[in-house]
Every structure is written in C-alpha cells, then in structure tokens.
C-alpha cells in the first residue's frame, strides 16, 4: 500500500520547507519512527520521521529543494508497489490522504490549509510522549519536539513547566555559546534580552555593551518583543490587491438613506415560520435585502453591470455577491439570477453559499461573475459605512444595523426600527441621480414590501 510522505506544516506561518538532507535512499527499508529527512523552516530545523513502515519508494525532491507544506515529497510502500513518477499536486494529496490531522490540503487557492494538530515528531504513534494538552500547545508554540523534553509528572508525563524550562535551558545554552563581554552579559540578562541574535561589533563578533544597548533601543521601538504580523499572502494578498485596485481606480461616491423597517420586520415575522417549515432554515434580513435589491436592480440596470475590458456591460440577471466574513478574510460568493428566486430559494441558496465560504468549500465559479454586491454589517453596532466596490462591478450596498429610533410619522414622533443603507457607486459609470433613484426605490420597497409582488 502506498503511503505519502508530506512536507510537514510546522507552524501557522510556515508555507514552504527546505529539504536539508534525506537520511534514506529510495529502496531503503523504513520503520515507523525512523528519521527520514531533515527539513528547515524559516525558524527551525526539524527531523521528519516516517509514519509508516515499508520501503522508501520515491523521493520527489532532493536537498535544497523548497517545497510547499503538505505537498507530497515521497512515498513509502511495500517492495512491490510502484509510486507515480511525478508527485500528485496538493489537491491530489488531500484526496488520497490517509493520515488524519496531517495532510489537510487547501481546497481553494484562496484559503490556507488548517493547522495540523501536532508536530509530526510529537504525533508519532507508538512512542507518543505523555504530555498535558497545555504542554503540547506550549511545545507547538515554541517549536519544541516533545521527545526531547523530560517530563516531571507521573510516568514521565510532560507538563507545560517542563517545556518552558526546556526552552529556558536551551536559550541559556545558546547565550553561553555567544561571545560577549561580562558587562554585555549582565545587561542582557538584566533586561531579559537574548544575546544570540545580537550582532557583536567587538573582536571576532564579540557582543559589547554598546551592541546590547543598540538591541535594547531597537526593541523599545517595537510594541512587543514578539512581532505580530499579518502576512500579505494567500487570501489576504488577494484582498489587499483588489481593495487597493478598486479604491485607487474607481471614483467612489457613497450615498446613504435611512429606512423604516417596520413593515419589513412584520413581513419577516410572518414569513419566518412558513419558510422555516419549508426549508428548515430561518429567513434573515439579509435575504430579504437580497430580494429587494434584486427587484430594484432590474429597474436600474446601470447599477447592475460589470466592466469588461473598456466597456461596461449591463447584466441581464441580478447576480448578487454576498460578502461573507471568514477566518482571516472575506469571500464574496455569488447568487446567480436572484431576481427569479423566491424567498425560500434565496434562503437556501444564500445560506448554502455562506456555509461553503466558511468551510472553505467554495469553487472558483462561486466567487466570480457577480453584477452587484451586498455587504451586511447590521449584526454589529454599525449604522452606515463606505463600502468599497467589488470590481469589476460598479456598485455595492452596505447594510447597517436595525435600531429603534425616533421617527416622525404623520407629524407625530414615533419609535420605529430604522436602518441605514450605504450605496457606493463608481462615478465613472453611474451618476448621482440614477444611483439616488435606485436607493430611493430600494427604500420604498423595504418600507412597503408588498411592492415586491408587483
């Protein structure tokens, strides 16, 4: 039976690993737990053990190769097995993965793979070290192989304190190996500064007092010792590119209006049990908004459009993108032909897409082809905002919270559920008046939802 050898993912930020050396040659017998190869990340070098016994059949990458995490780098199998000549791509790796918690492949190119539960050499079955969950987490966070930590608990169970004292001892050992003057050492230890990364300006790199002071001054300018960064990669990178592209090319105008949601609320209350009975799902204001927006887009075709090359193509269908917040990002799956959908269908389709988005199961075709986007921040304490157009579309609607507010109805002060809509449009394509007309229509439809029936 063929078993893949993966490039392990050893930390949240690890995207690729560099193979330093293999310890087994193709054809070598391999026992579970044998050290197969050594891998370098930007932080550590780590030995990768075999998860399976058999024969190392294939090595796809040699020393110095940089391989994405979770990529198949080799195969272990029975002597008679034949491994493919080329490594399967990442999705192939996922399909044939038999190793739970390890080769969690990315299902979309915009999503990053899930963090494996354990460091590979901590997860080796058979000789899995006894450790508390806190110790495992600490080991993961500090990139410590649990095997190297001596447990102080019952039957050698490793506690978090054991991991921490192991790390402290390792740091101390590293500091002792650094050449530094006694004064530099005292100052560094007093300030809890690690001597190892400090570049010494003394004879043969000896760390002097001034070097430590420079490091202290540099550390002072940083908010914390462990720099917390958002890496501009994967989905984040795409969002960054697209948002700045849109913000810097389309002259955005945002107009707002406030809607009395009394009638819409009443309608939702009436339809909720009906739709729930039919679909098992609860009707939300978002879906009612989608319905109303689709109807209005049909009446205002200039807002339902896409830039294609140098033209703006008006779209026949209301293909409405719904902004969905996902872990570390934002996805906009598209509901096609929204104007033809009844509310029950809308509820099912939109909830299905939102669920897929959160579970990283969207397909590329779910994410393109929109003609308009709706972004709902109404679940937060947000009244209005200035949404950025999801290009190549030309307009986007932002939905604020529904809040009881004083409203003047027929000359009388009443408390009504009020909601603010924010419409951003690309002024190259749409002028103020048609955009205002669309927003006015939308307000009327929401305040008198029977219009949807017309």
């Amino acid at each position, binding site marked *: 039976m063929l078993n893949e050898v993966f490039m392990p993912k050893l930390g949240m930020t690890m995207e690729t690993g560099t193979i330093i050396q293999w310890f087994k040659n193709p054809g070598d017998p391999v026992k579970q737990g044998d050290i197969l190869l050594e891998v370098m990340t930007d932080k550590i070098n780590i030995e990768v053990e075999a998860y399976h016994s058999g024969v190392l059949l294939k090595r796809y990458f040699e020393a110095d190769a940089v391989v994405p995490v979770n990529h198949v780098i080799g195969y272990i199998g029975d002597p008679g097995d034949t491994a493919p000549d080329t490594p399967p791509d990442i999705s192939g790796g996922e399909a044939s993965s038999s190793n739970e918690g390890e080769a969690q492949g990315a299902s979309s190119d915009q999503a990053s793979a899930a963090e494996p539960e354990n460091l590979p050499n901590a997860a080796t079955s058979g000789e899995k070290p006894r450790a508390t969950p806190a110790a495992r987490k600490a080991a993961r966070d500090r990139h410590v192989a649990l095997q190297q930590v001596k447990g102080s608990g019952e039957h050698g169970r490793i506690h978090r304190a054991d991991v921490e004292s192991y790390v402290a001892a390792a740091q101390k050992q590293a500091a002792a190996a650094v050449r530094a*003057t*006694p*004064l*530099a050492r*005292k*100052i560094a230890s*007093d300030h809890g500064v690690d001597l190892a990364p400090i570049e010494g300006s003394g004879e043969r790199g000896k760390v*002097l*007092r001034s070097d430590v002071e420079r490091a202290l001054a540099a550390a002072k300018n940083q908010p914390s010792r462990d720099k917390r960064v958002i890496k501009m990669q994967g989905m984040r990178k795409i969002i960054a590119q697209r948002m700045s592209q849109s913000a810097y090319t389309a002259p955005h105008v945002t107009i707002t209006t406030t809607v009395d949601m009394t009638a819409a609320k009443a309608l939702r209350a009436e339809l909720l049990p009906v739709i729930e009975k039919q679909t098992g799902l609860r009707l939300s204001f978002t879906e009612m908004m989608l319905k109303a927006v689709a109807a209005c887009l049909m009446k205002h075709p200039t807002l339902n459009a896409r830039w294609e090359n140098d033209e703006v193509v008006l779209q026949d269908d209301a293909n409405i993108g719904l902004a969905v917040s996902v872990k570390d990002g934002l996805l906009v799956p598209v509901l096609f032909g929204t104007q033809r959908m009844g509310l029950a269908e809308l509820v099912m389709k939109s909830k299905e897409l939102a669920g897929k988005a959160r579970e990283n199961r969207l397909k590329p075709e779910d994410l393109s082809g929109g003609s308009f986007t709706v972004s709902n921040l109404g679940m937060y304490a947000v009244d209005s905002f200035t949404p950025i157009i999801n290009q190549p579309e030309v307009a986007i609607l932002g939905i604020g919270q529904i809040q009881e507010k004083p409203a003047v109805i027929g000359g009388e002060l009443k408390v009504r559920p009020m909601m603010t809509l924010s419409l951003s449009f690309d002024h190259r394509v749409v002028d103020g008046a048609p955009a205002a007309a669309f927003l006015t229509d939308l307000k009327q439809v929401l305040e008198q939802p029977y219009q949807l029936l017309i």
Partner: protein
Amino acid sequence: MDSFDIAVIGGGPGGYVAAIRAAKLGRSVVVIEGAELGGTCLNRGCIPSKTLLHLAETAETIKKAAAYGIKTGPIELDWDAMLNRQGQVMKTLRGGIDGLLKVNRIRHIRGWGKVLPTREIEVTAESGVSKLRADKVILATGSKPFVPPIAGLEGLPYQTSDTVFQMQRIPQSMTIIGGGVIGAEFAAIFSAFGTKVTVVEAADRMVPTEDEAASQALAKALKQRGVELYTGTKVEQVGFGNGQFTLSASSDGKTFGHSAEELLVAVGRVPNLAGLEELGLRMNGRFVDVNEHLETSLANIYAIGDVVGGYQLAHVASAEGLVAAANAAGKQERMNYKVVPRCIYTHPEIASVGMTEKEARQSGAAVKVQTYALRGNGKAISMGDTDGFVKVIADEKYGEILGVTMVGPHVTEMITTASSFMHLEGTVTEWAQLIHPHPTVSESLYEAVNGWMGLGVNH
C-alpha cells in the same frame, strides 16, 4: 617633485607612530620633522622629565635608606652628570625611532614643513627649500608651552619645560607658576634635589583635573619635602633683578610678594600651528578641529595629537596616530577615548583612568566607590612607601568599572589592570575573582574590588 601616499608633519609620538602604521599598511610615507625625532615627549617632556624624576626618587630613597640601615653619608648631586644621563636616554630612544623609520622604509626629511591646500608641502631644511606632494597628509605638529600674559613677564629669562633642562645648575630656589601635571612633576624633581620650590596655582588645589583625594595626597607629599604651595592664587606681576625673580601674587584679595632664583612657567600648552597657516582649517578654539575619524575640515588632511587638543598625552597622540594612519590608508576607524589612562610621575605617583569619583557622581549614575589605603598593603609597608590609596568607582547595578584613581608606588604601571578591565568590559565580579600576585601593591586593587562587593578580606 617627490610624491608620497602619506606625508606626516611632525615626528613626535603621534607622527612617527602614524608613519609606521601607514607604512605597515603598505603606503609610501614621508615624515617631516625640523627638530629631533620623538617630539616633545622624547626631547622636552615625558622622557627627560621621567629620567630626572627617577633620579629624584633615587635621591629620596637614599635619604630614607639611613633609617633602614643603609648609611651613605651626605649625598652629592652632579647636575651635569644627570643631564648627561638624560641625554643618553634620549639619544637611545631617538636612535630607536630612527631605526624604526628606516626598517619601515619611511623617508625622514629633516626640515620644517609648510602644508598647502593642494597637499603640496614646502620643506625648509638647512640645505634649502624643496617641495613634495602627498595624497594624504597627517598633521602632527604638537604643542609648545603656553606663556600667559602676566605683567612684566615678557622678555625675562624665565624657564619653560622646553628650557629647564638647559639650566646650568640646580637652583637654590625656584618658583613654579602652575600646579598642574607639569608643575607638580618639576616641583617633585627639584625639591628632591634640594631646591626651595614654591608652586603658585590659580585653582583651589594641585592637579585640579584629578581626584581631590589624589590631589591632597600629592600636596601633602610635596609639603613634606618643603615645597610651598599657594593654591587659589593668581600671579599679578613678575620682575627680575640681581639674579632674582620677584613675583607678586594675590589670594582672596590679599597680595604678597615672593622671590626665587628661577621662575618656571608651566601653565599649559598651546598647539603648534606653524606650517598650517595657509590651510585655513576649521578650528576648535585654539586647536585644529577634527571629527572622530580625525579628519580635519579639509578632505584628505588629518590631524592628531596635541595640535587637536583633548588629553594632550603622548599615548593619546599615538592612539590617534594609529587611527588617522588607518583612515588615510583607506580604512574606517574611529577614535575611542573611553579608556585613557592618566599618569603623574611624582612621588607618590598618581594614576587614573575613566571617571573620577566626582565625575561619576555628577553623571547621575548610581555609583559605589571603594577606597583601600596602602598602609594595609604588605608590599607597600615593606618598601616603606605607604602614602597612597586605590579607589575603584563602579556602577552599582552591573558593577561596571567607571573609573579607578590610585596614588602610591608603582601605580602608573598598575593602572593598566584597571584599563584592561574597562576595555574588555569586565565588571567588579570578574575582577574580584582574578588572582593577584602576592606581595604586590597591585593586591590593593584586589582588596578594593572585593571590598566593593562587601567581600573584602584584609580590611
């Protein structure tokens, strides 16, 4: 016209050292020196004065020896023989420098250089005027005694440190204007030779830049040898008649007169700018202004030693010479003045490095000071030389050695231990663990640092 990579103007302890380093770095070098090699240090300063100070100390020792069981009868001082001995010492050392220049293939031109902004140098020698050219020039023209504008002084046959060794005899009496390092050393020399010495110092104590306790110890030692000290005293007027210098001085508004056979003016030194006039260098007060690379305001022209001011010590000039030579040879070195030892060769000697106690306290750092008196030191007791102390000034938090001041025998040699700890960033902790040889005066430092840590054994 001869052309060189580097021309050094001045052959003193700054200039000749710079020349040798530049030559070792593969540059063609010329040294232009109008007088003897070795500069003030070798010919009119450190070396001749140390030679005589040693003789003075020998005389002192002989005087003291009777009490220890060595009786010599009255001693006789032969000034000419002393100067002869002094001359031999200087000749030996000059020969040494000359040899070093030859070995390093450095051209030595005996003449006075005048530097032009084009880095052409006009050399006036006995044989006539010649010209040469250099890519880089290191100015090491040194300094000369400063003669203050005291009423009546001009034109009188007074002595300076340049002329004092040319005196015909040991004078009966001598007045020294200036109680700094130079004045103190001459007071020590001549008082040992039986001259009635009077020192007039404007500041409120001798060697005012040094630790107050050191200055008191020195004053006490000089007074014991009959030196009259007038501190906080300003010389108002000087006259000369009948082989006697007369001097009127004032202190706290009171004026008094004094007379002596010789008058030595030792109030400091001014830079020697001869030959630099046409460069139009940016100045820092009286001195040539340089940056930490010892570059002057003109590209490719460096300056070192007394002409740039600062410590005005031979070993600082040499250190500056090494940095300037390296930079002139294309390196990028910086002058670091953090650890500069300062020595006064009186009896007792005074040596210090880093901050004085007062400077350290004024710096705002939390400092702890430990003093150890030599009267508890075995070697000092056996030598009968227990006047003095060692004082270690260290920062309280890390035990960083901020400064050391010492008074006593051998302290000018011992100061290098303190300098080493500072240079290598050792702290009292390491010093307290260092085994010092017994019996030595240097053990007193061991006691002081252990005392600093509250772990002193012998006090």
